[in-house]
């Protein structure tokens, strides 16, 4: 380490993860397929809402300020639903982090999923780890240019599809697709696609682990949310150490390995000064009392498959996204040398002292049964239930009435008194509806709707309509003479029959 000169900046050391197979790899393939399918297919799902509303199942209609999610339609004033979903997302993150550590990073984060996809392409075109390392070190040749060009072309196509899929969430997908191809789509669509294509291509193809280590805040936050009961990917050093390979295994018992901070790339470790006691899984030298070599044969399979280029045997570290591929790699090796699986495994920090002392491993589900996790689950469910309740008790008719107060009333030539109200009526239905308005003070007051005869007004489909309504109290009536009269304005949906009311006031001449 002291050979190279001190530099405050380090170039990226490329990582060539080896292919691996096993339970977690299969799980990751399934999750990748599912998440990518959800992302690409969702905007193309249709949902019939009638002739006047869009038929896209999931649509963020920014221009018309509507959010459609299958049978649910959210208006801007109902944005608390989105706030509630964000609260649920936050609590869900707390729950998963407390129970399973950085499981989001390892399985579901778009950066992980797309990097995995890009790695798959890279491996498919250029070959596995060794072939890719050879290719990188080889001088430029037609073959190298072809392979790199093919890889990058496929990456670019995936990136284009990724950026392209995003814009479909914001407008009718089939229409936009046609417009995009015909170069008639709005400029902002092309701009969004260009930016997302570029970020996908660069982040997934070239920056990869740099995003997680240097740009993402999550690795820094995780330390505050995990505890000693959290299941995370770790190396059972009490079982593996002292490590050694081949014939030298016999000598290894006395040759304890000193852990360096930057093994396998230049990924920085979280400095953990207290790491050398037995409370935390780490690369601490095994207790001297253990006789003979450990199970780790130092084959580096775990390092070679790691997409972050780290050595899990160094212990918990910021750069580990807990993708669990090292578990698969190690399990394969353990099977070959006839040792039980799980030298690298999902374990909790609290397992270390017990297992090191010879205790039996605790099953994973027992780790999940902790008060903290129950609390998070409870809160998460509570918010979810409240949201569902709020969804079902949403009023069908929404009306607001604001009296115009400049002036508060108008005296007419026959001595009657007129008040003016701005009435906003929401029609959430897919077709135009007629509403009947009536004031509670009965025959005393005449109601007139601006610009039309009668007491009914028609609100077009999926619209909030502002209408001016005049209420007139005849000369000598109580409402005309009093300063303020309480008043209730009723509205009836003539088709659906729902009623709603708003309390307001009628201003009269009062005592002048």
């Amino acid at each position, binding site marked *: *380490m002291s050979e190279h000169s001190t530099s*405050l900046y380090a170039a990226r050391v490329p990582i060539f993860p080896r292919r691996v197979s096993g339970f977690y790899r299969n799980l990751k393939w399934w999750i990748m397929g599912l998440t990518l399918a959800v992302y690409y297919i969702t905007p193309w799902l249709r949902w019939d809402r009638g002739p006047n509303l869009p038929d896209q199942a999931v649509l963020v209609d920014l221009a018309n300020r509507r959010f459609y999610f299958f049978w649910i339609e959210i208006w801007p004033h109902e944005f608390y639903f989105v706030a509630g979903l964000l609260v649920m997302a936050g609590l869900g993150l707390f729950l998963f982090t407390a129970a399973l550590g950085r499981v989001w990073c390892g399985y579901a984060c778009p950066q992980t999923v797309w990097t995995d996809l890009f790695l798959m392409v890279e491996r498919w075109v250029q070959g596995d780890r060794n072939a890719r390392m050879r290719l990188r070190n080889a001088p430029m040749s037609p073959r190298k240019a072809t392979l790199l060009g093919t890889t990058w072309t496929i990456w670019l196509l995936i990136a284009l599809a990724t950026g392209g899929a995003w814009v479909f969430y914001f407008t009718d997908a089939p229409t936009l697709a046609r417009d995009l191809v015909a170069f008639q789509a709005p400029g902002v669509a092309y701009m969004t696609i260009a930016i997302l294509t570029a970020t996908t291509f660069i982040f997934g193809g070239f920056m990869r682990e*740099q995003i997680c280590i*240097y740009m993402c805040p999550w690795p820094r936050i995780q330390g505050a949310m995990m505890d000693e009961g959290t299941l995370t990917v770790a190396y059972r050093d009490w079982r593996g150490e002292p490590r050694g390979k081949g014939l030298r295994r016999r000598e290894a018992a006395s040759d304890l390995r000193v852990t360096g*901070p930057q093994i396998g790339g230049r990924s920085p470790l979280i*400095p953990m000064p207290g790491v050398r006691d037995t409370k935390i899984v780490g690369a601490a030298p095994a207790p001297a009392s253990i006789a003979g070599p450990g199970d780790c044969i130092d084959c580096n399979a775990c390092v070679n498959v790691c997409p972050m280029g780290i050595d899990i045997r160094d212990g918990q570290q910021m750069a580990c996204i807990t993708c669990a591929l090292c578990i698969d790699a190690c399990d394969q090796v353990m099977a070959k040398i006839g040792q039980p699986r799980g030298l690298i495994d999902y374990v909790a920090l609290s397992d270390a002292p017990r297992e090191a002392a010879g205790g039996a491993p605790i099953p994973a589900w027992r780790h999940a049964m902790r008060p903290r996790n129950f609390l998070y689950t409870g809160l998460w469910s509570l918010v979810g239930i409240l949201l569902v309740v709020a969804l079902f008790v949403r009023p069908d008719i929404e009306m607001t009435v604001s009296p115009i107060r*400049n*002036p508060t009333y108008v005296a007419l030539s026959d*001595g009657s008194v007129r008040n003016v109200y701005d009435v906003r009526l929401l029609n959430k239905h897919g077709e135009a509806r007629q509403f009947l308005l009536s004031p509670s003070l009965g025959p005393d007051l005449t109601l007139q709707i601006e610009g039309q005869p009668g007491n009914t007004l028609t609100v077009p489909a999926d619209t909030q309509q502002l209408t001016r309504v005049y209420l007139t109290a005849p000369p000598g009536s109580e409402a005309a003479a009093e300063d303020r009269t309480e008043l209730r304005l009723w509205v009836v949906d003539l088709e659906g029959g729902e009623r709603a009311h708003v309390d307001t006031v009628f201003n009269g001449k009062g005592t002048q």
Partner: protein
Amino acid sequence: MSKRRIDDVTGTETTGHEWDGIEELNNPLPRWWLWTFYGTVAFSVVYMILYPAIPLINGATGGVLGWSQRGDVAAEIAAVDAAQADMRASLTEVDLAAVSLNPELLSFATNAGAAVFRTNCSQCHGSGAAGALGYPNLLDDAWLWGGTLEDIAYTVRHGIRNEVDPDARYSQMPAFGEMLTEEEIATLVAHVQSLPEGQDPLAGPGGELFDMNCSSCHGLDAQGDRFLGAPNLTDAIWLYGNSDDQLTEVITEGPFGVMPPWGGRLTEAEVRAVATYVHGLGGGETQVGENDNIE
């Protein structure tokens, strides 16, 4: 910087910086970060050349693109002006009564008229158009000179009793203080106050005075005459109030309310817009009265 050192506790190289025994660890930043930083520096240099950037004593450097926020606003105003040109043209051309038949034009005229009203009319008629003592309320159904669209547009265009526009609506109520005694005026005040309650305008001693002095303008039925701007005295609207003192003053002095002509200051489209707005406030009349003079 000369001596390279590995920190004992963390195993990390130090930068060689040391203060009172506290050493700085060298966890190197990625090189792409450095290049990104250089990129932002280069961007800022280009930006400073292209856009206004460096503050000087009187203003700032202009930037070679010549861009300014003020220019943006001017361009936006010009764009809106251009976009509204068609609307203004059709507002000027169509028959005023036909404006309400075209919802788009009506909406444009009402909104534009509201802006014109706030700027030019609200000083006297109030921001809510409710008027004040001596300044007519434009929300009610009483009109001195007529409440159809054409009447209102004419009033806006030429004004009332001003010396500027020869076509201004004109009339003058005499100061009866020079002709009638105080007793006669007091009798007349009481008589006029009783008119809205159904009192016969020509009955009694007040009716005699009314017949001789007032009926030529306000009419034998006291319902006024829009041709002369003479108010209806049988309704509940009193421009100058109907207390004893207020009516005494009106009859003694003779009111002379002036409204300036707006035809020269507003464009024809603006006059028509504000007429449409005022007409739509709740008191606008649709029928053309027999006494109305239409331009």
